[in-house]
């Protein structure tokens, strides 16, 4: 009996009146876990019962502990008739199952009823006694920690990052069972809530098992989603990144902990060598397939790096090579067992070597109920429509959904390879379902991760602290798909180290693919930062802006919005028409993003998320990203408008008028976002791009592109202009939509990434919010244009409304702005936005710059351990006489956004030959092995440059303030951190699913009143659970689903909301500073000795 669950019901308060006669309630409580139920006594005639029950004890398997929620039902005792339910509380006891999290759940929980909402509160105490029974450990996965946060959680260090984990479970949806016709809506809702709770528990346990198998102990970036497939069932699926995390128990005591990984280090330093094979794959068939695909479908070439996956609709028409490749891939996948995917979006500095671009794949599937009684999906594969004759598919295959996703992931993987990348970071998956059609989407950022980072001895400290890292894909051919890989050495002054250390601010921008054999046409220049390597003209990614990136000015939220009508159709016809539309939508979305980016004078997108939503008679695309100006990338050229009939005088005039407007807007935006890149003298620019042949390919046109090459304006000099040809109404509309985007009012910035590039001085004042709008598209005969305009207006108005609401917080920034679009009915569009507004202080930036280094040192140390390690590491280095001075220097460089220390530039040396790198790499490892034995400790400049920059950056971010937080307040934020605060403990994952239904919609204030109350209730329940765990904040909060249905004629409405996040305890930095901070010198000692131990 591996576990004992103990529950005590203490009291209730503010119960509803259940007995009209006495205006009182005779309440009692049922406590249910698994199949066991206990009851309290009836506490008669009170709205504030004091049960003070005994401890109810459940003796259960830990497997059950993981799957089952604790179910507490409050009822009103009725002598003559059936007892009336007041409401329920579901408590996920998972946080109690791992030692480091919460030890007890105790507090007031809202009593929730799916029909009436919150009805009073109940005070409950829950404890778990776990018996250590190792034999049973394999069936459950107790002890595996889950984090929604998409970075290494702040008070942990990553010993190993194992890689991708995924799982899904399927069940029948209770709402569609026959019994639903006879049971009450309440019973039906509760059955559904309970089932989903059970399924999430099971899913989490299964993922946990996979993690244990990989010898990990945690899942980071855990994302769980529900697919409500209607009659064909209910799918709960999750993805995440398996890690081995070590708790940093104390800010000063973390250093000795680095011993364990270093012991394993020597054993397999060379295993990763084959990983370089990944780089060579850009000659593979997929490469050509990609190219041809694009040109086949459009008479244009896509002018950027992104979108090797232009939607699988187009993939459907491609020829054989791709399929062969797929087969190859599948085989290799079998060997590897894993996808080199990471759901993380933020990485330690220097970890990302290169970023290739966004890879995405979509696939349209049919959820078929007739052929599919046991949830066996039929593959309505868009890749080739004839596959829709399902005879060719094994319909007995029980894991259709699994197979669907596996297929998509394969595609993503191959796209990444085509980009010369061996990994995909910032990976996510989503679905959109309408009736029986389902679009599966996956996207991520192709990347080359830093093997050098692993081997580089100078990184020893941080490597150990944060990233002794071992991705599964590095170990191709190894039997388990994972090999411990901890190359490290105390030495790094080796030639190689200096040679390849990319300047921290630009390295990730350098192209990972072969310049002469690019997977798609792109315009390359030498990096504007280091001048050594090639960079693309624009960079699109799904990850957060790397901490070390050098950014000019501020960033901004960029959205592309799009509607496409489609005919109502059934089954295959529907799927076909959707997949035919997809590539066009992707293309259109991409063009919009590109135009808007240029219009803002920026050259890179981060956090790109493209959502394609399918409805009855239309498709909607919404792409959100944060645009920035990366100093390493070339200045974007302007937007040039080209008319098709140049002879027409008035037309010319019109065009020039538009051109002027566009130019004005660009100038205005540059001012607004403070984009003043340093003007570099010609000689520094170095060897200009040798191939002007590329330029013509940047031309965008709807039809004949070749005619217009001459239109390229030379006034933009070497910078290539982006040509918009307004030869048809489509393009006209594009231009208009470009110009209708209104910049946020002054004092406001917005982004969809964690932090706003260019703003560092946050105050602790935050406001998380959810806004939902449902609008009716009232057009009788809608066209794509009018729909686009409507949709655009809807989004713009929503943003405007947010700015207005939050005007009291100015100056502030909306961070992590997350739009979700749904098409609940024929003409209804639903947009849900969750974001956090953070106030920043304009004046404190200067102060922070001037602050004495020592002070800043302390402050950084209070930020979080991850950052903390850097300065301490530095100070521990015996060779660096002035450990803090580089920090200051780099800081100044960062704050002015311009100065790149000359030394930094000198450190990087061009490497064009791939083979060279490979050789040198192996050499380095050998060298390192020697130096470890010798035990010498040295540093290179690369460390000094990389780390202090990060430190300075974060110091800006975490300006403390004097405001005190009251104990009862629970903060919520979609970010992984709280400004001005330090997260001291992660208490467990919050993953909640609620259904609310009403049959008196008008009485509850109509749809708005209903949903307003429900969202407030959801927030309240999340806060209550966090408070009961002993926490005071939820980080990485996300509303994953908000499904709203109404039937005004029947006065009914129903809504489902699914939210998740990490419950944490945080401490204000202002409070921390009162405590004696450990002197850096003291910490330096163990660091030195740790270094000794490793030798």
């Amino acid at each position, binding site marked *: 009996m591996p576990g004992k669950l103990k529950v005590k019901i203490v009291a209730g308060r503010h119960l509803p009146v259940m007995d009209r006669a006495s205006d009182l309630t005779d309440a009692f409580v049922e406590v249910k876990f698994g199949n066991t139920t206990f009851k309290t006594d009836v506490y008669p005639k009170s709205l504030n019962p004091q049960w003070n029950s005994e401890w109810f004890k459940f003796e259960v398997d830990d497997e059950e502990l993981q799957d089952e929620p604790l179910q507490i039902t409050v009822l009103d005792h009725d002598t003559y008739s059936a007892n009336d339910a007041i409401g329920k509380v579901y408590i996920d006891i998972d946080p109690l199952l791992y030692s480091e999290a919460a030890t007890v759940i105790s507090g007031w929980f809202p009593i929730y009823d799916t029909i009436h909402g919150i009805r009073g509160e109940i005070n409950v105490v829950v404890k778990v006694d776990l018996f250590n029974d190792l034999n049973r450990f394999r069936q459950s996965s107790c002890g595996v920690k889950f984090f929604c946060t998409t970075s290494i959680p702040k008070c942990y260090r990553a010993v190993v990052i194992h890689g991708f984990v995924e799982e899904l479970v399927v069940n029948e949806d209770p709402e569609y069972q026959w019994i639903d016709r006879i049971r009450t809506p309440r019973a039906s809702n509760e059955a559904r809530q309970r089932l989903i709770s059970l399924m999430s528990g099971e899913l989490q346990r299964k993922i946990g098992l996979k993690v244990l198998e990989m010898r990990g102990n945690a899942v980071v970036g855990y994302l769980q989603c529900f697919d409500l497939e209607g009659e064909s069932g209910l799918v709960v699926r999750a993805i995440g990144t398996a890690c081995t995390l070590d708790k940093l128990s104390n800010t000063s005591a973390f250093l000795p902990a680095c011993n364990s990984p270093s012991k394993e280090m020597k054993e397999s330093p060379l295993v990763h060598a084959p990983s370089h094979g990944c780089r060579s794959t850009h000659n593979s068939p997929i490469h050509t397939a990609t190219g041809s695909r694009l040109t086949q479908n459009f008479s244009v070439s896509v002018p950027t790096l992104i979108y090797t996956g232009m939607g699988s609709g187009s993939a459907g028409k491609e020829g054989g090579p791709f399929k062969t490749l797929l087969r190859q891939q599948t085989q290799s996948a079998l060997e590897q067992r894993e996808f080199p995917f990471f759901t993380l979006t933020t990485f330690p500095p220097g970890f990302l070597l290169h970023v290739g671009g966004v890879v995405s794949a979509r696939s349209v599937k049919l959820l078929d109920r007739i052929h599919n009684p046991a949830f066996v999906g039929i593959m309505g594969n868009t890749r080739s429509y004839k596959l829709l004759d399902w005879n060719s598919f094994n319909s007995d295959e029980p894991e259709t959904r699994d197979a669907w996703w596996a297929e998509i992931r394969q595609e993503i993987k191959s796209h990444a390879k085509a980009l010369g990348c061996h990994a995909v970071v910032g990976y996510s998956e989503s679905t959109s379902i309408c009736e029986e059609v389902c679009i599966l989407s996956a996207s991520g950022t192709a990347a080359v991760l830093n093997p050098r980072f692993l081997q580089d001895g100078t990184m020893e400290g941080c490597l150990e602290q944060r990233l002794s890292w071992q991705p599964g894909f590095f170990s191709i051919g190894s039997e388990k798909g994972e090999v411990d890989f901890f190359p490290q050495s105390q030495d790094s002054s080796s030639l190689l180290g200096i040679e390849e250390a990319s300047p921290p601010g630009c390295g990730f921008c350098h192209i990972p693919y072969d310049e002469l054999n690019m997977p798609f046409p792109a315009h390359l220049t030498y990096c504007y930062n280091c001048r050594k390597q090639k960079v693309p003209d624009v960079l699109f990614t799904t990850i957060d802006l790397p901490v070390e990136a050098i950014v000019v000015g501020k960033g901004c939220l960029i959205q592309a919005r799009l509607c496409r009508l489609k005919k109502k159709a059934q089954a295959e016809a529907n799927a076909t028409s959707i997949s035919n539309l997809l590539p066009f939508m992707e293309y259109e979305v991409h063009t919009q993003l590109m135009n808007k980016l240029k219009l803002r004078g920026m050259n890179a997108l981060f956090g790109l998320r493209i959502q394609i939503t399918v409805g009855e008679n239309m498709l909607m695309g919404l792409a959100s990203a944060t645009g920035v100006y990366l100093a390493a990338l070339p200045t974007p050229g302007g937007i040039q408008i080209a008319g098709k009939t140049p002879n027409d005088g008035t037309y010319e005039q019109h065009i020039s008028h538009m051109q002027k407007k566009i130019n004005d807007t660009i100038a205005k935006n540059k001012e607004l976002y403070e984009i003043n890149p340093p003007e570099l003298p010609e000689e520094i620019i170095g060897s200009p791009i040798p191939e002007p042949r590329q330029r013509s390919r940047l031309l965008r046109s709807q039809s004949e592109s070749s005619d217009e090459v001459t239109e390229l304006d030379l006034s933009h000099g070497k910078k290539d202009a982006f040509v918009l040809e307004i030869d048809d109404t489509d393009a006209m509309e594009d231009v208009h939509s470009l110009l209708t985007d209104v910049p946020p009012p002054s004092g406001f910035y917005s982004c969809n990434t964690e932090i706003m590039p260019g703003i560092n001085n946050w105050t602790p004042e935050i406001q998380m919010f959810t806004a939902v709008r449902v609008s009716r598209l009232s057009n009788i005969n809608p066209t794509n244009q009018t729909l686009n305009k409507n949709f655009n207006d809807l989004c713009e108005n929503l943003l405007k409304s947010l700015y207005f609401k939050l005007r009291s917080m100015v100056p502030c920034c909306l961070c992590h702005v997350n739009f979700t679009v749904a098409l609940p009915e024929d003409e209804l569009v639903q947009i849900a936005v969750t974001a956090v507004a953070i106030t920043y202080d304009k004046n404190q930036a200067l102060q922070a710059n001037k602050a004495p280094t020592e002070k800043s040192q302390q402050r950084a140390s209070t930020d979080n351990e991850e950052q903390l390690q850097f300065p301490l590491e530095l100070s521990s280095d015996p060779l660096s006489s002035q450990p803090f001075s580089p920090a200051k220097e780099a800081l100044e460089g960062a704050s002015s956004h311009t100065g790149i220390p000359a030394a930094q530039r000198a450190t990087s040396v061009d490497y064009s030959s791939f083979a060279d790198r490979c050789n040198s790499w192996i050499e380095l490892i050998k060298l390192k092995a020697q130096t470890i034995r010798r035990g010498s400790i040295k540093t290179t400049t690369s460390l000094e440059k990389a780390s202090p920059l990060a430190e300075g950056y974060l110091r800006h971010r975490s300006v403390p303030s004097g405001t005190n937080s009251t104990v009862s307040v629970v903060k919520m934020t979609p970010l992984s951190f709280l400004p001005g605060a330090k997260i001291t403990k992660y208490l467990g994952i919050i993953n909640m699913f609620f259904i609310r239904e009403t049959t008196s919609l008008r009485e509850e204030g109509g749809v708005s009143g209903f949903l*307003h109350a429900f*969202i407030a209730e959801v927030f309240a329940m999340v806060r209550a659970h966090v408070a009961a765990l002993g926490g005071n904040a939820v980080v990485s909060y996300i509303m994953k689903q908000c499904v709203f249905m109404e039937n005004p004629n029947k006065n009914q409405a129903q809504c489902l909301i699914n939210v998740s996040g990490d419950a944490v305890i945080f401490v204000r930095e202002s409070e921390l500073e009162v405590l004696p901070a450990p002197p850096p010198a003291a910490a330096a000692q163990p660091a030195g000795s740790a270094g000794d131990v490793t030798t």
Partner: protein
Amino acid sequence: MSSDLDVFVGNTTLIDEEVYRLWLDGHSVAEAVARRLRGGVLEREGTSVAVLQSDTRDHYRTFQMLERLLHAPPRLLQQLLFQIPPERQALLVQRYYAFDEALARELLGKKLSKGTKKELDEVSARTGVGIRSCRRQFDNFKRVFKAVEELRGPLAENIQQLFLLPPALARDYAAIVFFANSRFETGKRRLQFLSFGDFAACAQSMMAHWSQGALGTPKTPKKPQKPQSMMAHWSQGALAPEAAEPDGDLPKSFLQDLKELKVLVSDKDLLDQHKSLVCSALRGKISVYNELEANFKALSRALVNVGGKLTHARDVRDFFVDLVEKVIEPCRSDKWSPGDLRLFLTHYTAAPRNLPGFRHQALWERYMAAISACLLRMYHD
């Protein structure tokens, strides 16, 4: 494209003070939007009418949901639905319970019943306070009244703890409850010159000097009641049965005892002695000495008899009428200055100490303390 559904929910509930004021004043969403437009918010923020409408609706919905909690402010502190910083909560409560003095003046001494509520239309017209706001304020009065009606202990403190009001506002509510409970007549024309503030001050003096708690030795030891326990009290709806007399009622024994004071006017000797003591003390000190000498007996009779009548409910109603009619108006017609009145009352109250055979000195001074305070407050044009 019309928005069917449009909500904004913050983890910390947004409270816009301006919109709250409009809501409290009973404006509809459309009226509120119109007023905000006139306030120039559009120009300041550069936004659109649609945004303003959506914002106003959001706030109104929030307030409507909050209203239920505002009816029992301690619940606002305990509830989990809205996360509102404490100072914001205080502001919400304070603003919700703030009232228009003109309206309160109208309702002083009236029974807080359905009948009175029906008359609010007229009151609204007279005072210029919006009818919806009138109803809300009336309901506030009634709610506070019901809540403390049968509680022991100082009225103002009970109100403060039950409704988490600032002390001054709680004292005003105590006055309202006191008036509603004793049903003093305040509507007569000759009382029209008195403001709500005057009456509230009178009520406070009366409670301060006359109520149970004002006595040095209360029957039961007075415990400071915590909001928590009051809360339990509140929601259970059951009241402590041992409560002797709520503070809103004047102690019966005290009122009964007041009859003893009649000796001051009924006993001719005492009356004469009293007069001579007062006159000799005031001679040359007040400008209206002659008038005082002439009217002393009438004044004294009036002052003593007001107290003697307090045992009968019907006579209680006339308390203020009597004071005005029999004391204030004669003095005013004789052109007493407020200083004259003050001197007179001081000596009038002090004199019986030297009266042989008058044994109710403590009672007399307790009685006169309130009467003097009331008269001095009411003595103006």
